[in-house]
């Protein structure tokens, strides 16, 4: 099983949702993060004092799937979400040792 952590701009979330739903992802967790990558931060102003908002709001979408679906998802995301701009985001893949469904106690692939 793989955990995909997909970090994108907030405004692309709707599209990613659609991709995930189509790919039949069994579950998803979304959280807000402040990100810093190739995309540069911007300068803000408060009462005339400049400061850098060098962290931009990003959305992190986490989904755990079996290895096969993971690969398909990665392909889908790259093809549909790439706009060719800095800030398009990244996917981080981790191995998952186990999954447990609390309701039933089922473990592993069955719990997905």
């Amino acid at each position, binding site marked *: 099983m793989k955990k995909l952590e997909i970090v994108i701009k*907030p*405004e692309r979330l709707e599209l990613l949702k659609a991709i995930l739903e189509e790919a039949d992802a069994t579950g998803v967790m979304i959280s*807000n993060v402040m990100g810093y990558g190739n995309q540069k931060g*911007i300068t*803000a*102003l408060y009462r005339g004092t400049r400061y850098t908002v060098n962290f931009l*709001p990003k*959305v992190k979408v986490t989904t755990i799937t079996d290895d096969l679906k993971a690969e398909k998802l990665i392909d889908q995301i790259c093809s549909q979400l790439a706009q060719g701009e800095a800030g398009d985001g990244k996917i981080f893949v981790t191995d998952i040792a186990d999954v447990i469904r609390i309701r039933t106690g089922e473990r592993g692939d069955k719990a997905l």
Partner: protein
Amino acid sequence: MEDLTMSVETLARNADILWTLIAAILVFFMQAGFAMVETGFTRAKNAGNIIMKNTMDFAVGSILFLLVGYGIMFGDKFMGLFGTTGFIDPTTIGDSYFIFFQTVFAATAATIVSGAMAERTKFKSYLIYSAVISLIIYPVVGAWTWGGGWLSSLGFHDFAGSTVVHSVGGWSALMGAKILGPRIGKFGPNKRPNAIPGHSLTLGALGVFILWFGWFGFNPGSTVALVPEIGDIAMTTNLAAAAGGCSAMFISWFKFKKPDVGLTLNGVLGGLVAITAGTAAVSNMGAILIGLIAGFIIVFGAWILENIFHIDDPVGAVPVHLMNGVFGTLAVGLFAIPENFGGTAAGLFYGGGLSLLGSQLIGVLSVGIWTSLTAGILFLILKKTVGLRVSPAEELEGLDLREHGSESYPDFMVKG
């Protein structure tokens, strides 16, 4: 004895000034109401921008209306069309307390637009628009009506400004929202509207309460004199607001299966706008009926605007100020009671026939044509020159950061 007469007269006059000034102060506070409603009903990433627009249209408008607008509205008329005296220093043709009262009314008309054009309009263009409406568009309508121009001679009755103030703001809002186009993401494929919920229902509701409060200056204060009827006017004002809230709530409950918070709050505002023209001319029952219809207009008006005309009006300014402004003005032709303080002819339902309704219609149409034409041309010129709309990237990131370099809620995690 003569002395005494004089001092009684002075006292009476001072009492008129007192009441008018207090009413003007209440109307001023409606600016805070508009700011809260508009910011509450839009997204957090544009909150600072809306605040700036609401502050600056009042600030800029206050100065320009003094220098030019008041003269156009109340100066000696050229063919009943616009005034030609009293520029730069209008205290030569009017008293300060009255100029101040008129200033806050002008500002109300101006500020309505920012809500309909929220979350995508360039700040610079908004400033220019708001200068023009305070300089010309609103004062000309004011000249026709309260300034003693041609419409008032026709018997057109708009006591506190359903047409003069609210529909002027409403028509401009409609033209602006139409020419600007919808926010990114507002309409899906097949033009199906998506909801873009506002970021704080509590601030929105606070704004509605502040507006309701201020309206007790807006309507009863439009007597511009201390007369006992201010109590009656406060009653009709309150009843229409209450009825507007009730009917919008029940209709939304029936139509959507749940009592909708946003529509209910807009229903209150719709009731207030609708009663504004006839507030001194109708009975309490008339006010309740007007409010009930106003709530209905809110729910269906908002629906039609989005689903039929595909116009994106983030805070519902068009149903509130335009549709109910028009309805309220016409309602005078239906519900007016001649013996009331307003002193109009009788409305249709009180045996007055169609004559009053006729003049009301002429008023609605002429103001509508004037305002939508001038505002439309203004927005089109702005579009071709300075540009009316921010870039998509700016819109997506939010106008706060891009237009003002500011964050409105830096301590909180704000969703995209």
